[in-house]
């Protein structure tokens, strides 16, 4: 256990019926979740959704009221944190300010009785992995935010943990550095191959980094899937709204089960009779169609009045009123060819949506 080599000890996590209450509030409500061996899984949700509680339960800092957590074959629900062999990175980095960089990273090795040359060698190897070679003797207050992040990371994996947990580790960094660290973390994960559970409230970060994303809200697991599926086929209105931008419009259903939007067939409810359905339109999947274009097998066309076009740098956002109280957001690139220019506020415009880009979600529970 003590000298397990890096990257060979990835373990799956199996969570069953995990429940945690604070008073009458369910922080976690009967959560089932399987994290595959070696995968990068992100817990994504708004603040107060229970994602951090779930992470803390995996780490052993929060004792659930009931349920099961297994690392591989081992039930760990009663195992204290220091025996779980889990590396953890906190939002605040939580580096030990009274130790230098090498002592911080060497701390878990020291606790495992690894001393002298071997400890120094493994610390140096970890420093190299996070591209901080030669920083061992530095004090913590001599490091930049990004460097601190890397030290916290090195400290979390240097002892070859079976599982790596990260609680919003990049949220304190500025946007540019954060985006670079996202890629670096992804590379590091690939290199170490360790099962990683990552918590964030930043949907873009979740989509960028994860093998799979678990969307959590009100203590419940709402949807668990790859970033593509989560984005392209949200399970419900919450996921559609929380991830990406969207305009949501109600659909009607005819007697044959076809779903209609303003008389145009956009989908099929099948035999499911008892629900309301909603059309989700992603602004970047919409485009301006030629005047006079009509709905066909390929494209759904809506007409409306251009209310406003806002230049946002890499893209432009247009708000189109398709009736008095319904606005649809359309996002398009600013490459010159694909612009709304030519249209002014108040002009009549046509917007198109490829039928492949139609997202239809059921509202609420089936009756």
């Amino acid at each position, binding site marked *: 256990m003590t000298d397990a080599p890096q990257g060979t000890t990835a373990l799956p996590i199996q969570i069953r019926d995990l429940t945690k209450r604070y008073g009458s509030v369910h922080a976690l409500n009967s959560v089932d979740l399987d994290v595959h061996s070696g995968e990068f899984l992100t817990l994504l949700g708004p603040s107060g959704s229970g994602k951090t509680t779930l992470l803390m339960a995996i780490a052993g*800092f929060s004792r659930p009221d009931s349920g099961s957590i297994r690392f591989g074959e081992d039930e760990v629900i009663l195992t204290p944190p220091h025996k779980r062999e889990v590396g953890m990175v906190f939002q605040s980095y939580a580096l030990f300010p009274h130790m230098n960089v090498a002592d911080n990273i060497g701390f878990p090795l020291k606790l495992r009785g690894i001393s002298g040359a071997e400890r120094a060698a493994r610390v140096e190897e970890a420093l190299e992995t996070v591209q901080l070679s030669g920083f061992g003797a530095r004090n913590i207050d001599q490091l930049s935010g990004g460097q601190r992040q890397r030290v916290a990371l090195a400290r979390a994996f240097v002892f070859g943990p079976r599982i790596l947990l990260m609680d919003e580790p990049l949220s304190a960094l500025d946007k540019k550095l954060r985006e670079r660290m996202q890629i670096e973390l992804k590379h590091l994960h690939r290199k170490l191959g360790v099962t990683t559970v990552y918590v964030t409230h930043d949907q873009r970060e979740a989509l960028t980094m994860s093998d799979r994303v678990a969307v959590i809200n009100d203590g419940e697991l709402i949807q668990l899937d790859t970033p593509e599926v989560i984005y392209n086929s949200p399970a419900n209105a919450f996921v559609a709204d929380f991830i990406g931008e969207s305009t949501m419009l109600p659909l009607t259903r005819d007697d044959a089960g076809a779903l209609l939007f303003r008389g145009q067939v956009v989908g099929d409810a099948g035999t499911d009779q008892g629900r309301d359905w909603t059309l989700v339109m992603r602004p970047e999947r919409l485009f301006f169609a030629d005047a006079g274009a009509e709905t066909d097998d390929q494209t759904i066309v809506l007409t409306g009045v251009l209310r406003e076009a806002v230049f946002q740098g890499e893209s432009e956002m247009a708000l189109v009123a398709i009736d008095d109280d319904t606005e649809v957001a359309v996002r398009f690139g600013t490459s010159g060819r694909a612009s709304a220019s030519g249209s002014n506020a108040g002009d009549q415009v046509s917007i198109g949506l490829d039928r492949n880009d139609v997202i239809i979600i059921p509202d609420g529970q089936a009756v």
Partner: protein
Amino acid sequence: MNWWSRPAADTQITHGNRLWLYVLSAIIMLLLVAPTLIVVPMSFSDSQYLEFPPSTWSLRWYEEYLGSAKWMRATATSFQVGFLTMLVATPLGVMAAYALFVSRHRATRAIFLLLITPMIVPVILIAIGTFYAYGRVGMNNTIAGLVLAHSALALPIAIIVVTAGLSSYDLSQEQVARSLGATRTKAFFLITLPQIRFSVITAALLSFLTSFDEVIIAIFVSGGANATLTKHMFAALRDYIDPTIAAISTIMVILSSALLLLTQFLGSKGKRN
């Protein structure tokens, strides 16, 4: 620009405008310190009586103090009780402050107030109560009794100092240490304690001083062979006035000031870290 018309702060107010404030502050500080300092020249007097200013000078009262078995014994008692009080109050204070800091229990506020009551209740009440309580269990005039009573007085100070030291401490460091393989106890001693060490040392020094300077409880519950220096001084002032007291006072002022300066120094060092 001379000192007079230079701005005193990030404002347009100059040192000249502020002169009245400087003078007032100096007067207040003088009034606070003067009664203490007046004993210093008196201790170097050659007179039989307390005299200010002294007409002739000598070191005889220092010799008197250092040569007296009675005074030396009382001094040893005071150091012993002070040291033991420090050993009792500091760990208890650290444990209480840590528990209150970590706990999310709703009663922490009430427990904190309960623990600092010895600071709020008039010492004379504690002294009388302790005296009668000790009378029942035969702890009057014992070192242990005095140490316990002084620890009750020192505990609130230790708790407040350590709580202040913990206030800026990030507890997730301890969680990290535990996830890295440290037991909770190890995490506290290896990670938390080194970072609040200046507060702990300050708490220890102030605990010592609380006991060393204390007179009211000592008058009630210490006596005989275990009477403290302060108790002897009080008795000496009542029975016969003699400049030995001034000499002892001077030594105590120097010792206390040195310890206080040390805590200030440690405090600023702790803040820098």
